[in-house]
């Protein structure tokens, strides 16, 4: 253990950075999978993802889920207007 800093103002400040909480994808029980042929590229999943784990770079591409950080909450599946996202239990 290092020496205790003798300071009256030690501040627990965190700045947004990718993966500050570790690879939270390991928490996932259900894996959302985007069905590319059904996707209409409306970006609803990208907008609703609470972890910003869905990446989309243009309106012409199908968004990609970053499984390193996706916790498997399936909000994306719920909001998809054309049921283009299915879920699979991890490990099956």
């Amino acid at each position, binding site marked *: *253990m290092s020496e*205790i*800093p*003798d*300071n*009256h*103002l*030690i*501040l*627990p*400040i*965190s*700045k*947004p950075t990718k993966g500050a909480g570790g690879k939270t994808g390991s928490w996932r029980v259900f894996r959302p999978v985007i069905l590319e042929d059904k996707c209409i590229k409306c970006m609803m999943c990208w907008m609703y993802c609470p972890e910003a784990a869905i990446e989309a770079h243009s309106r012409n591409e199908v968004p990609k889920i970053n499984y390193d950080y996706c916790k498997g909450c399936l909000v994306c599946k719920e909001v998809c207007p054309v049921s283009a996202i299915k879920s699979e239990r991890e490990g099956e």
Partner: protein
Amino acid sequence: METYDVITGNDAVAWGARLSRVEVIAAYPITPQTTIVEKLAEWVDKGEIDARYIAVESEHSAMSAAMGASAAGARAFTATSSQGFLYMFEMISWAAGARTPVVMAVVNRALGPPWNIWSEHTDALMARDTGWIQFWASNNQEALDSIIQAYRVAEDKKVILPAMVMLGGFVLSHTAMPVRIHDQDKVDQYLPPYSPPHYVLNPKLSEPFAYGNILFPWDYAKVRLSIQRAMENSVDVIKKAAREFQEIFGIWHGDLIKEAYTDNAEMLIFALGAVAEQAEATAELLRKKGYKVGVVKVRVTRPFPKHEIAKLANKVSRIIVIDRDISFGWDGILAGEIKATLHEHNVDTPVTTKIMGIGGDDILPDHIEKAVKEVYNK
């Protein structure tokens, strides 16, 4: 311009906040505090003070809003009592950890059940372990002045902790006394605008960041230790704030303590707030009757004035602590703190606890005189 008026303790507190140029007031009404924030709301409504008044749905939200305002760089104020204080408790602890120097008036009121709206100190004393600086006003002038001093101490770069100022429900809050309302320029000279030395949560001024995310034990302990260091620093800051207040305004309320009749005293009475004021008046009578009794107003309970109390206690043969509060299963709360202090400093003066005035029962000079006589010749 300096004026004099006959006002209640609550109006004095409102004036203290006004003269401190508070910028955000967030509060929820509760007896006997309500008239403080009503007065401030009236001033905001009439445009007499340049502040934002946030009417919230609970005390928990009142402290959250005050803390948010302070984190964004504003001077924030709130006030509460008793049940409201307890409802706010989670955020009271958070405000200290967030290092937001909010000032709050706590109008002491007994806790239910049974329902009771009168004065008792147990509410605020429950928060002595939260990291707030705690001032106790013993009269209405001190209530006004302690709000100003509290901002000065809380916002000091060596401290940066919230501070609460206590006044007894009804005994002070609704009792009118002559009060000097200071000249605004003098207060501005004493209390400069708040300038946060640590962080400002304002997206217009900085990159986005979060405060207080989860930390593992070792780093958590470092952050919490820094609160203890700030408390230790505050001792000298409080003394300096009291001295400079005296230089500018010519009023001395004491710093961490205030002594009365302590010269060649054989017995000391320790008490908080208006109870201590009553004890001081009683000591004056008892001195005339030949009892060498002195009074120590404990003006600040956090940081606790350990050295000052031990030094005075060492010179006398008997101590009485009057507690308008109780820690069930232990002792009067102030008495417990004083006994621990004396043990730490190897002072063996016997301490007698007198629990009085629970639920607002009047503490009269006769009661204090009786307590003194019981112990004096033992």
